[in-house]
């Protein structure tokens, strides 16, 4: 009943001037907005990065969002994981995320999955998805997403943070290097320090990339790694290329 009401309300306001998306339709038109609406997204992780990614994707009107996280909300998450509130302590992050996203945009479909992403379930989790948003906190899980992106030939929007630092790049199978070309080996495991604003910077860059990809605007971070140093207040980029010796793609995107 609530959904019927909100979609009706959306139509009433959808005259381009007063509608929810009026300000971004100025950027990519009704056509672009329709493309966002028909895009199905997997957000891997509802932590710090996942919070920024999910809020901005939901608000922008990505039509179907599946958000996956196996953890429960802890007090030490709340400095940065803005999907979750004090009242969510002890709840599954995916369910808390569902409530936040449904609250910010009732016109989209949100699906919450309380599972750890693994070799066994990644195919099921990606069923019907057009893109993968990286909100993970370790390289082994990112390699899993990278393999799945290659297998399904869908883009992977990578981001990672530690403290004031962050990085982002866009992987498009067959057209760019893959994540394993860029990072052939995982760094030693460690608990990363984190502030919410760094997650905000990097998560926002990932979403900007996804919007550009869907609407066909701008120059994507293809074969370019963007590096954010918050302490220096500095953004830099370095280029990279598909590697013939890559264990995952063998340089698949070289000729693109």
């Amino acid at each position: 009943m609530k959904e019927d009401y909100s979609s009706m309300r959306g139509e009433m306001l959808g005259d381009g001037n007063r509608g929810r998306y009026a300000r971004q339709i100025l950027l990519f038109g009704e056509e672009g907005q329709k493309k966002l609406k028909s895009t199905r997204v997997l957000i891997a992780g509802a932590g710090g990065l996942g919070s920024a990614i999910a809020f901005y994707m939901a608000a922008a009107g990505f039509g179907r969002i599946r958000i996956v996280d196996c953890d429960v909300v802890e007090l030490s998450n709340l400095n940065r994981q803005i999907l979750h509130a004090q009242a969510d302590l002890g709840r599954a992050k995916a369910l808390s995320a569902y409530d936040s996203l449904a609250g910010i945009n009732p016109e989209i479909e949100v699906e919450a999955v309380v599972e750890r992403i693994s070799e066994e379930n990644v195919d099921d989790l990606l069923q019907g998805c057009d893109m993968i948003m990286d909100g993970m906190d370790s390289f082994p899980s990112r390699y899993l997403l990278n393999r799945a992106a290659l297998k399904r030939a869908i883009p992977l929007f990578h981001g990672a943070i530690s403290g004031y630092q962050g990085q982002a790049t866009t992987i498009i199978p067959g057209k760019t290097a893959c994540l394993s070309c860029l990072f052939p080996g995982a760094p030693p495991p460690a608990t990363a320090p984190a502030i919410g604003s760094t997650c905000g910077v990097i998560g926002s860059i990932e979403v900007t990339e996804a919007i550009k990809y869907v609407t066909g605007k701008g120059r994507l971070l293809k074969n370019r790694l963007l590096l954010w140093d918050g302490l220096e207040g500095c953004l830099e980029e370095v280029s990279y290329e598909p590697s013939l010796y890559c264990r995952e793609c063998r340089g698949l995107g070289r000729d693109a």
Partner: protein
Amino acid sequence: MLISMPDGSRRVLSRSEARIEEIVKDLGINPEEVIVAKNGRIVPDDETAGGSDQLKIVRFVHGG
């Protein structure tokens, strides 16, 4: 060789052509924790560098 360190500082190093992995180790950095751009492009750490090459050593991050 002009080397940009992970902390943003810069060093000038004069040494003969060597594998990037060796150069990084000699600077006291664990090669597993960094990627290295040679003249603006990330290269595998078994590639060599020397002369007037510019190396940027980036400590990549993994948190989320």
